[in-house]
């Protein structure tokens, strides 16, 4: 229950009422008040606007139970003189429900304010989060779609055009790709380091003037303003060192992390393409050189005597190599007018039957060119193959070693009319 005062403005106060002939605001406010006056109209006139702020009841003589409102919370209640001894109880009975109502109303109003405050705070937070979420969702959808399209295009580029194109065409392909849908970059330029600065390799679309960074910078990718990106990578070309390259792209609506990441990925891909092509070219040259060297080493034709050469067969002999040797040897016999050819198998590892047949054919062909052919150093394995093939060894001169063959050939040459075996 709130504080309650019982004030009589009349000198003759009912029991329980204190006499305050000129009550002040301080007396009348700050709780419920029960006022007593035999001249209520005069009191109301005296109180004036304060009536609008007092909570309570003005008790006065009159018709029992008649009441009226003097202010938002101040009632006028008439009583008979007989009730004066019980006026405090009467006032309490009158004020009690209002007291509770005021208490409840204040509590509810406070709760209302607190709820409104909490609601406001939460709405603000919800609005903030919703706005944020919408923006992020929109961005995410847009970037996901763009990234997917860009990656698909990149895969197609790798699988198609990039694979087939000549190296010289790559710069044009690169810049064209970046300005094509779905990447929608307004401009693209590819620069290679050259001389004292940069040399433009290819350009597509409209790109505003951009100050190129100095050569040898460390940054892989950098933004110029809020709409242009410069990516740096190495473009290794065949037969040369890696050349520093710059890829410059422009995005009118600004560049974001997705474009930045894509461009970085793309430059890695392009750098790998250049490096792959350079390695491929270098590998081709190395293979050709190796083949020539092998061919040269595979058919050594060694002159061991006047008009006499020796061809040592070393390692594994396959049909292809045997054919090479055959061709080279017959050319040498014809071109150099050789009289004797010693084919030495001492260093030969294994030979298949087809290879052995090629050598027997070689011997016959040498004979047709007017020269003799002697096989030396035939191993047991090769001999078995020869026999297995049904080669008539009487057709082919054989000796145990090159030394023996030479002695025989030199001896034959020394004897007039010396007969050639075979």
């Amino acid at each position, binding site marked *: 229950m709130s504080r309650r005062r019982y004030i009589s403005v009349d000198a003759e106060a009912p029991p329980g009422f204190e006499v305050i002939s000129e009550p002040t*605001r*301080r007396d009348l*406010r*700050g*709780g419920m008040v029960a006022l007593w006056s035999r001249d209520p109209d005069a009191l109301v006139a005296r109180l004036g606007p304060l009536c609008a*702020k007092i909570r309570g009841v003005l008790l006065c003589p009159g018709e029992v139970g008649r009441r009226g409102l003097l202010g938002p919370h101040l009632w006028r209640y008439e009583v008979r003189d007989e009730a004066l001894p019980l006026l405090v109880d009467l006032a309490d009975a009158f004020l009690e429900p209002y007291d509770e109502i005021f208490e409840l109303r*204040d509590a509810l*109003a*406070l709760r209302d*304010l*607190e709820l409104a*405050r909490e609601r*406001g*705070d939460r709405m*603000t937070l919800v609005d*903030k989060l919703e*706005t*944020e979420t919408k*923006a*992020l969702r929109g961005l995410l959808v847009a970037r996901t779609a763009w990234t997917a399209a860009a990656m698909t295009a990149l895969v197609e580029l790798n699988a198609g055009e990039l694979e087939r194109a000549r190296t010289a065409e790559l710069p044009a392909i690169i810049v064209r790709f970046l300005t094509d849908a779905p990447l929608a970059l307004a401009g693209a330029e590819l620069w290679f380091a050259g001389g004292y600065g940069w040399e433009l390799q290819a350009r597509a679309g409209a790109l505003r003037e951009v100050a190129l960074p100095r050569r040898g910078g460390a940054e892989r990718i950098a933004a110029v303003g*809020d709409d242009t990106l410069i990516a740096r990578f190495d473009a290794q070309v065949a037969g040369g060192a890696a050349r520093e390259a710059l890829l410059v792209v422009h995005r009118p609506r*600004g560049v*974001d*992390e997705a474009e*930045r990441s894509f461009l970085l990925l793309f430059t890695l891909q392009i750098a790998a393409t250049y490096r792959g092509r350079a390695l491929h070219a270098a590998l081709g040259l190395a293979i050709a050189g190796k083949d020539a060297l092998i061919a040269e080493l595979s058919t050594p034709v060694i002159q061991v005597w006047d008009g006499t050469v020796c061809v040592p067969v070393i390692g594994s002999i396959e049909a292809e190599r045997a054919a090479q040797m055959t061709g080279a040897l017959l050319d040498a016999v014809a071109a150099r007018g050789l009289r004797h050819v010693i084919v030495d198998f001492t260093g030969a590892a294994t030979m298949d039957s087809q290879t052995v047949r090629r050598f027997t054919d070689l011997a016959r062909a040498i004979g047709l060119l007017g020269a003799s052919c002697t096989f030396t150093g035939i191993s047991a394995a090769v001999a078995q193959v020869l026999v297995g093939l049904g080669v008539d060894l009487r057709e082919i001169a054989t000796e145990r070693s090159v030394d023996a063959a030479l002695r025989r050939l030199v001896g034959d040459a020394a004897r007039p009319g010396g007969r050639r075996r075979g």
Partner: protein
Amino acid sequence: MRALSATSTRLDAYEAGRELGEALAAIEPEVVVIFSSIHYDLGEQREGLIDGLGREDVLIFGGTGDGFFETASSSDIGVAALGLSSGGAMRFYAHLERDLGVDSRAAARRCGAAVRAAAGDAPVRLAMVLFDGLATADNRVVEGLGEALDCPVFGGVTSDDRKLETSYVVVDGEAHADAVAVLALCGDFDFVVGVENGTCPVGEVGRVDAAEGNTILRIDGRSALEFVADRLGKSPDAFTHQDIGVVNFQCSARADMRDSLYRSIAQWRRESGALETFGPVEVGQYVRVALVTSDELLAGIDGVLDGVGGAADRAFTPVAALGISCAGRKWFLGPRFAEEIEAVRARFPGLPIIGFPSLGEISPRRRGDGSYSRNLFHNVSFVLTLLGAAAGAPEAT
């Protein structure tokens, strides 16, 4: 010096004021400082206060805020009051100046000059300022006060219940929006003022190349947004509304960041990279990006308490305290906001203290030798002023 604090959450303005007055009447205060939520009829509240005190010869000074905090409680709705009684050792002078929005610097200067004139020959040793920051886009109150007063000034920007629509400052029977009010304290007393916020500076210091009012345009040759993004290691595009309140600037006139103040980012302009802050930043000022978490904000309170605690070596016993905490801190801390005042209570048990969440805090920085910097306008900060009797002064009766 004696002090009492009290609160009321009664909704009826008169009854709330009366409740406060009756609670403070015992010490017969010469001045009562009130921090009220915006819901009250402040005239009615004053009448209640006067009636509760039972006397009219008391100076009432205060304003509205986003709730209040007090020795024993805190609330979004209600009113807190601190009564001070010096037994005549102190003199208090207050003045309210209107039309702050027309020229905040001039209004503050007039207000400061008025209290200084009222004080006459008595030097104004400390002043408290409250002003309606919602009425002025270009807040130059600290500069204006500096042209009239040469003492430490603490205070804050009055506010409302987060609607940011209107706020009031109160001096006696006057309660006005679009106004600035100053309470000057003269005579024999002691005080210490501390300010801190707990934010964590990151990265190198930069220098402001271009700024207009509350907007920083360029720092270290690049847009303000790019500067911040660089220091945070993130893309300018990655900024979101969530960064507001988290990202702040530590600002100072010197590269070593001595006597620094803080600015919170109010919003950013993506197209230009400009950043708008709650308060002006000057060209040539040095700035450093500062981040904040709830724990760091609360650690800032310990910083304030440690700072003012240094006054103990002067045998200074505080009798009352006034706290000004940024409304942004309240927003950021949410339910943990109450921990701020709990930390103060824990350090100064039973000390009468009232405070309010403001839209900007004013305080000089107290240096290690006890001297004060010039007065500064801060964001996201907590200002604590301790008042006590001058050493050796008899206790007021």
